[in-house]
């Protein structure tokens, strides 16, 4: 369904001269530097998959989505979506994909939702019966009825997002690209949108590529995740595999009987230390929890200890902060199913 090979995008960032004369000079000479936004990324997505495309701000998530949707022309590498090359066959590709950007609406600001939809029906030439049926289904699933005749500019963020997602699906696309679809929404609104995406995926076999900061989205929706950081692909595989891979790191919190000056323990890093409370990070491959506690007990007196498995949010954060760890682990034949 989607094939991406060695896809790269670099941007020239220009230095702009200001003013009347400056704008004229800009035409002829401009200083620039090159920013690598996506660097040799490759992956494939099969029909009916939901893939979480994750990464911190500025990692290159949106740039990738924009190349898949035909908004940006890649600097090198190849992309096909549904067999179309998005930037060359932009219009053909556009007929078969749906796109939602959480940060801005694709609807017409001053038109009521209903009229925006009707305009899309004309633009995509959606047959009347198909259009009616879709509107009916989406109206019910997303509760569009309350604001169907309200101009888009007057909608709340949650309403707007629901309208935008429905709008992106009116023409029955095969692939749905969602860029931060739950950004800024409350818990209820998020849950409703997730349910809807899930349902569209199972009932209509719509392939979904989703970028998000919200790891709840990922846990609820995606079996598979792709991690990207600093323009490069860092991980591509099952969410459970990622968790297993990263879960090898654990946290041990210890409350000492007193504040010892030196609490360092071999094979464990101190994550934080505050008075008598110390948190260690350790890897069970290097030292078992029992041995670690044993070592500590030999040296110090303790009041309480607890072991935590870091939640996925923390894990991914560590991946971003310390890419080497993950790369090292990926190099080992630890999880052959990746």
């Amino acid at each position: 369904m989607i094939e991406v090979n060695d896809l790269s995008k670099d941007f020239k960032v220009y230095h702009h001269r200001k003013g009347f004369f400056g704008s004229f000079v800009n035409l002829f000479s401009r200083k620039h530097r090159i920013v690598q936004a996506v660097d040799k990324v490759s992956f494939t997505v099969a029909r009916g998959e939901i893939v979480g495309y994750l990464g911190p701000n500025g990692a290159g998530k949106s740039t990738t989505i924009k190349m898949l949707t035909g908004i940006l022309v890649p600097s090198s590498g190849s992309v096909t979506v549904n067999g179309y090359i998005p930037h060359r066959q932009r219009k053909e590709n556009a007929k078969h994909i749906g796109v939602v950007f959480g940060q801005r609406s694709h609807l017409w600001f001053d038109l009521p939702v209903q009229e925006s939809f009707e305009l899309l029906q004309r633009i995509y030439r959606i047959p009347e019966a198909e259009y009616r049926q879709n509107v009916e289904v989406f109206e019910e699933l997303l509760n569009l009825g309350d604001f169907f005749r309200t101009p888009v500019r007057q909608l709340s963020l949650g309403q707007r997002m629901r309208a935008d997602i429905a709008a992106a699906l009116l023409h029955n696309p095969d692939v749905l690209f969602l860029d931060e679809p739950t950004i800024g929404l409350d818990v209820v609104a998020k849950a409703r949108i997730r349910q809807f995406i899930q349902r569209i995926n199972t009932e209509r076999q719509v392939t979904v590529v989703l970028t998000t900061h919200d790891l709840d989205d990922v846990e609820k929706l995606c079996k598979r995740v792709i991690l990207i950081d600093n323009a490069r692909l860092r991980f591509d595989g099952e969410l459970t595999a990622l968790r297993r891979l990263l879960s090898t790191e654990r946290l041990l919190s210890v409350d000492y009987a007193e504040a010892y000056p030196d609490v360092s323990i071999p094979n464990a890093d101190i994550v934080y230390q505050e008075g008598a409370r110390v948190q260690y990070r350790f890897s069970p491959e290097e030292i078992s929890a029992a041995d670690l506690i044993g070592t500590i007990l030999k040296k110090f007196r303790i009041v309480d200890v607890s072991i935590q498995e870091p939640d996925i949010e923390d894990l991914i954060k560590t991946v971003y902060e310390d890419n080497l760890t993950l790369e090292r682990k990926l190099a080992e034949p630890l999880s052959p199913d990746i």
Partner: protein
Amino acid sequence: MHHLSLYLHFVKLRIRSQMEYRLSFIVELFAQASISVIDFFMIALLFNRFKQLAGWSLWEVGFLYGMIGICFAVAEMIGRGFDAFEKNIVRGDFDTILIRPLGTFYQVFANEFLLRRLGRIAQALVVLLIANSQLSVQWSLTKVGYLLISLMSGTCFFIGLFVIAATSCFWTVQSIEVINIFTHGGVFMGSYPFSIYRWWFRHFFTFIVPLACVNYFPALFLLGKIESLGVSPIGVQLAPFAGFLFLGITMLFWRWGVLHYQSTGH
């Protein structure tokens, strides 16, 4: 057909949303018309003192003024999408255009329609009609057709300028202000007979930026002034097509520019 009916639908929606604020709409309609009345009044004052300008009477100049005024106002009305394109790039709205299964040029064109320019069109038309009533032009079907083609060509010429400014946004984000020399400046220059300008200036605005081709030469032909100036009659008859050609070239420039669109944010 799909494109045409969709365009008309877009225009209908635009007009409706602009009519929503009826009072402000009407006030602006009249404000625009009266501003350009003052414009022509200045030219008339000039003639009050000099009577003639390079062999042109006041009403002949009025004819020129009316023609160029109509072209520019119509271009502003229907070519608004390109004229105000900068905000599309700044806000990132061009992304939306790129995800739709329609051409980018078509969508930018269809997206905007500035109805209140009717005020200016009406004012320029009135000047043209009054000028005509004071002159003794022998109108024939050919001449009426020629005038209409010239007006369309002139409109295309100005839209072409807007397209150049809009395309430059793909690189500079901000629209290049120099283009105003040619748009607003063009209206001003085109309101006077080109024979008053210097050699290099006349040639630049004939062959590079074909302003004279869509306004001055057609007026020469219509007012029967060709013979007096020794300009080639065939050249004059073909001149108005320069506007269409100019727009065509700017459309190619646009296509090339779209490939350089960088979007906003990464």
